[in-house]
């Protein structure tokens, strides 16, 4: 009878699991309970760097994410941009992933509006060009090589902010928010070839891969997924924003997934013992 129970557990219809995980994620979305978020040094390194720059410094925040990854990276992008704009840093941005161009434009425009920043004076959006590797290399020579005109079709030379800004060496640092494997190009080309000071904000899926570059000093900071975004929101003093709210769901869902792994394994070993005897 006992073995039969474990057999039933092992054969549970997968749609029950879908239902459980759906509810485990969904109910916390409704409740808005907030949970504490611990701050890690790799995220605060990004914050400290941006926070130490003098007002008016030009930084680059290239954003490569599309609708499929916006749940993770849009909160992060918003938090970083809010920090930049609140500190009167000037922002140059690109969107080298084609699906996300309009999304990035929206994030940039709306955050800038929130801080009443003016286009061309406080921030510039260069937009999209195909083949990110070549574009990243080309921008290392001169932004105008890849982007004679910005996203809105305005010539770069007629934007007052771009005056005297020719390539990465005129920017204080690059905070690349990226969901694609194009991150490697930023490390290899922008940092490796042109020596740009680089930090990454990436999806949690690829975040662990970039600790090696943190260790080697090729990047100075690293934000991974919603957790990274939630930490950044805390650092800029906005612990009620979207990523922090989502951390509740993440917590509950993690617990359930761990439970699934444990129950699944228990059933597996119980059944195996039964098979043997």
């Amino acid at each position, binding site marked *: 009878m006992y073995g039969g129970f474990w057999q039933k557990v092992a054969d549970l219809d997968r749609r029950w699991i879908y239902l459980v995980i759906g509810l485990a994620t969904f109910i916390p979305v409704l409740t808005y309970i907030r949970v504490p978020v611990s701050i890690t040094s790799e995220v605060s390194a990004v914050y400290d760097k941006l926070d130490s720059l003098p007002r008016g410094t030009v930084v680059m925040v290239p954003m490569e994410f599309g609708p499929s990854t916006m749940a993770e990276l849009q909160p992060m992008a918003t938090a970083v941009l809010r920090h930049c704009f609140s500190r009167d840093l000037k922002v140059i941005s690109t969107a080298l992933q084609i699906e996300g161009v309009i999304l990035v434009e929206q994030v940039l425009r709306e955050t800038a509006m929130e801080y009443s920043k003016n286009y061309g004076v406080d921030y510039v959006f260069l937009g999209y060009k195909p083949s990110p590797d070549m574009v990243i290399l080309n921008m290392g020579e001169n932004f105008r090589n890849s982007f004679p005109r910005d996203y809105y079709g305005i010539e770069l030379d007629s934007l007052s902010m771009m005056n005297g800004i020719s390539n990465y060496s005129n920017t204080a640092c690059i905070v690349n928010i990226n969901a694609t494997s194009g991150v490697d190009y930023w490390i290899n080309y922008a940092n490796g070839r042109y020596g740009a000071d680089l930090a990454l904000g990436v999806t949690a899926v690829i975040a662990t891969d970039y600790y090696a570059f943190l*260790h080697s000093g090729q990047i100075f900071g690293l934000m991974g997924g919603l957790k990274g975004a939630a930490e950044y929101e805390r650092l800029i003093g906005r612990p009620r924003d979207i990523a922090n709210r989502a951390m509740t769901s993440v917590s509950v869902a993690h617990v359930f997934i761990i439970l699934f792994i444990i129950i699944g394994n228990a059933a597996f070993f119980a059944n195996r013992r039964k098979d043997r005897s």
Partner: protein
Amino acid sequence: MTVAAFLTLCIFSFLYRDNPFYTFAEHLIVGISAGYWVAILYHTSLTDLWIEPLVASVRDFGNPGGSMIARGGMIVVNIMPGLIGLLMFSRFFKKTSWISRWPIAFYLGVSAGVALPLFLQSFVIRQVAANMINPVGVARNMAADLTVLVNYGNSTLLFWQGLGQIIIVLGCICGLAYFYFSAEHKGILGGAAKIGIWILMIGFGATFGYTVMARISLLIGRFNFLMDWIAAIGDYFKV
């Protein structure tokens, strides 16, 4: 908004089983995203990278100043990439499809050439440089922390940080030993490879844990969206 919510539900219906709603949504998106690509490429890339410099150099040709050859040369330089690119379309015709290898060859040659030294530099040499740790300094920090622990009973965790440095260097070497295929895994090499695979597993475990977080985040994003949709409907009925 409602269209969006409907399509979201179409996709979620795949969880139940493969069905016409899902197939419909999928085909719709393939078409729309291709059309979106055309628009983005047309507006942001083709005109300002190729057509405008070309037009400008043709206009310059008429202006006096500079040598004829230089001005003519500029036209050639500006027209070439587009012409090479147009060769790509030869692949739609069976007889001429071999010509499309030329632009591919150019593209591949340039990107391979750029990548060769840079991948060696960033992925190999910089990682090696990171592992050139100062053993004396690390040992000193660890000893200091142990002294604090023995004398005051609390740790500054410096010992663990130092140990971590050593784990990185040895772990990396053992990992490389695991991926060393020129000798059988016996003796020292075998031992190193065994430690290497354990280290690799811990690393993959970390990736695994983070991936779970990423996937959950995407789901939360969708639920937040559905909530907004419901809120919007609520507002609509209120008004």
